[in-house]
């Protein structure tokens, strides 16, 4: 029996879809059977991030409304054997699926896959309620901005009200230099405010843009820091103890600070 994770954030644009793609891809490259579910009906994107957009024939609404069988709608990834995508519908809206249908769908998927990872739409309306309906665990993504943290706090409250306790937090797009300068909230600051467990920190990285352009999740890139950060998150999901990655770049000033003993 598999586990259902929902990746959510409240605010849009903080990296839910990127995170979903990278967690799914990472778990699949670790040999797990994974299905990614795009619950952002009407604004589907997960297919593009994975580079699978031209293989879609049926979507989640076709499945829940009985137009096709679940198996027909699942798209096999072009790189990884164990990875599948259930795409969102693009020409429908969020009301095309109900929370009950999502629960049934998740139950079905759990029988076949080790991990079901749901990409939740932004907002707290029906799309959000649908996405979390069948989830066992939640991962909240935020960035070190006042607006994103505030929305994450709201989402954590709503998740708790929906009996999804102890969500795990991912802090995305951290800029170590700005944190050092005191111009960006640090990991500690955010944890202090949200009071939830941290499962990973992703540094701001141009490779995210480049890999998304190519439709290849950054987690497959062995050299990038963000790819490493996602690999660490995946190992933690798989139950390993992995220390948090240092956010310091070993630049000149860091060495200088070390030498003169300021750190």
């Amino acid at each position, binding site marked *: 029996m598999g586990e259902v994770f929902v990746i959510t954030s409240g605010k849009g644009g903080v990296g839910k879809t990127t995170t979903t793609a990278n967690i799914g891809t990472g778990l699949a490259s670790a040999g797990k059977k994974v299905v990614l579910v795009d619950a952002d009906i009407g604004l589907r994107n997960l297919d593009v991030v994975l580079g699978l957009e031209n*293989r*879609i024939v049926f979507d989640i609404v076709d499945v829940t409304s009985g137009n096709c069988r679940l198996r027909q709608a699942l798209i096999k990834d072009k790189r990884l054997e164990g990875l599948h995508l259930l795409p969102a519908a*693009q*020409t429908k809206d969020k009301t095309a699926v109900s929370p009950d249908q999502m629960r049934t769908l998740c139950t079905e998927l759990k029988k076949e896959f080790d991990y079901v990872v749901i990409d939740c739409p932004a907002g707290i309306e029906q799309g959000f309620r649908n996405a979390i309906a069948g989830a066992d665990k939640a991962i909240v993504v935020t960035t070190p901005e006042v607006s994103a943290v505030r929305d994450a706090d709201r989402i954590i409250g709503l998740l708790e009200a929906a009996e999804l306790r102890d969500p795990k937090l991912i802090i995305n797009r951290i800029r170590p230099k700005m944190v050092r300068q005191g111009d960006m909230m640090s990991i500690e600051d955010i944890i202090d405010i949200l009071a939830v467990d941290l499962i990973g920190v992703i540094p701001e990285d141009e490779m995210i843009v480049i890999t998304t352009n190519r439709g290849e999740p950054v987690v497959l890139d062995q050299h990038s820091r963000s790819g490493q950060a996602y690999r660490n998150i995946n190992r933690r999901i798989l139950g390993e103890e992995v220390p948090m990655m240092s956010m310091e770049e070993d630049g000149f000033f860091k060495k200088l600070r070390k030498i003169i003993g300021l750190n």
Partner: protein
Amino acid sequence: MAYSRGNSHSDILSGFGQGLPLDQEDLVDENTILVQRTLRSGQSIRYNGNVVVLGDVNPGAEISAAGNVIVMGALRGVVHAGAGGDEKAVVLAFKLQPTQLRISNHITRPPDNETPDADHPEMARIRDGVVTIEVFQTGLNDRAGVGK
């Protein structure tokens, strides 16, 4: 043939008819809708006949037609011609770069790692059981052949 050449309307039809497995008589009678706008992501057209778009079809938009699909612009979304099973249906576009192209029950997509660079009109149809894409010629020579 039923068409007299001389107005622009029949020019388009005759050019289109060149070498195509289309019965021109039928084309006149068949249902055709003219979509006079660009179809954006999330928008879809489903029609039990031919669909002509005067605009682009963006990624994320869908056209499903029982008959032929003609796009007077860039076709970048998903297109399905002959959705009712018509193997003779064609898809024609000024820039044919669909996310996915379906004719009848054939489903194709552009090959991976290849950026299509269609800067001339192209036409997709089924030949010997496979979807093929060919350059669509609109030269005078081609049209001249139609009236025979």
